[in-house]
């Protein structure tokens, strides 16, 4: 009884705070400060049509490097936490067969979902989307494949190689920015050019970086899924 009362009290005070915040909120009518700079100079400085991508990959690329590191850390902690013993690793569980509908649909949908994920991260600098979104779409294709066929095994060494190679390449392109551009993680390299605005080969190294990020995120999320799937073997 007391517990319910306390919960209601907490929620009511949150509601009070939010009500006042909502009432005193006045919508912007203009872009100010850093946003105005990004809007005005984003196209000429970075060359990406999608300004969110310009902010994420070029202006605030340290943030993105941190994001990639955090995802890697999550995958590492989960694989450490759900580690199986030797005998559990060799165990085989017989799963109940899944429905025919799911199996047939997944055969049709999984390749299309992979293709769509690749499209999303290749066009991250032109259309809504990018590396993280594309990687998440690829991982959801893998969820569908696992649900349709629970005995499916994912090749662990392929995932590890894709993940580490693309991670190292992102940092190497960042180092190239010191040598050829304005600093670490600069996407406009001298001699590489910005390309024609609005085409797929534009915005300096952004398409390359975002494709690598997409591959890395896709591999990492698949790795986490693989861990969850395998930990069922533990009795």
């Amino acid at each position, binding site marked *: 009884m007391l517990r319910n009362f306390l919960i209601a009290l907490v929620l009511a005070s*949150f509601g009070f705070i939010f009500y006042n915040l909502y009432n005193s909120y006045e*919508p912007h009518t203009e872009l100010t400060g850093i946003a105005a700079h990004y809007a*005005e100079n984003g196209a000429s400085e970075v060359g990406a049509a999608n300004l969110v991508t310009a902010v994420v990959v070029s202006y605030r690329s340290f943030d993105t490097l941190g994001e990639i590191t955090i995802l890697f850390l999550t995958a590492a902690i989960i694989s450490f936490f759900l580690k199986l013993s030797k005998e559990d690793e060799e165990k085989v569980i017989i799963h109940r067969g899944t429905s025919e509908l799911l199996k047939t649909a997944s055969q049709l949908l999984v390749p299309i979902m992979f293709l769509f994920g690749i499209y999303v991260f290749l066009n991250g600098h032109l259309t809504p989307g990018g590396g*993280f979104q594309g990687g998440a779409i690829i991982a959801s294709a893998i969820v569908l494949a696992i649900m349709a066929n629970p005995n499916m095994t994912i090749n662990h060494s392929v995932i590890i190689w894709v993940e580490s190679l693309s991670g190292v390449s992102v940092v190497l392109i960042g180092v190239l920015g010191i040598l050829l551009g304005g600093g670490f993680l600069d996407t406009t390299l001298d001699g590489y050019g910005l390309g024609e605005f609005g085409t797929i080969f534009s915005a300096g190294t952004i398409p390359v970086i975002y494709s690598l990020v997409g591959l890395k995120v896709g591999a990492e999320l698949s790795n986490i899924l693989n861990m969850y799937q395998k930990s069922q073997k533990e009795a």
Partner: protein
Amino acid sequence: MEILELGKIGLLIGFLLVIVGFWGVLQQKNIIKIIVSFTILNTGINLVMVALGYVKGRTAPIIDSSVEQIGNNNVINAIVDPVPQALVLTAIVIGFGVTALLLAYAMKLFKAKKSLEINDFNDLKW
């Protein structure tokens, strides 16, 4: 009744989702339901952040033909604030990482006691 503009609707729904998420985290007994409430809370905060960057009558921060129509080729008068959207992109990834860790802990907890009820885990309670 006057019609709310899009930014205010986003703010309102975001705050409601935050309150629903808090209620779930405090009230629910099942660990999986607590994790789901946590993600609802997360979504609400993201929605509030995106709504704060909204500017009335403007389009997404992507430079294409709609920018010509709305702002007469002047990007600064045609788009909403791109910075909160970029921040929310980061926040979504962090939220994903935390949710994945929570689910891994939930799996370990279930293996330990064969139960997902939070009241069964009273070893540290006195």
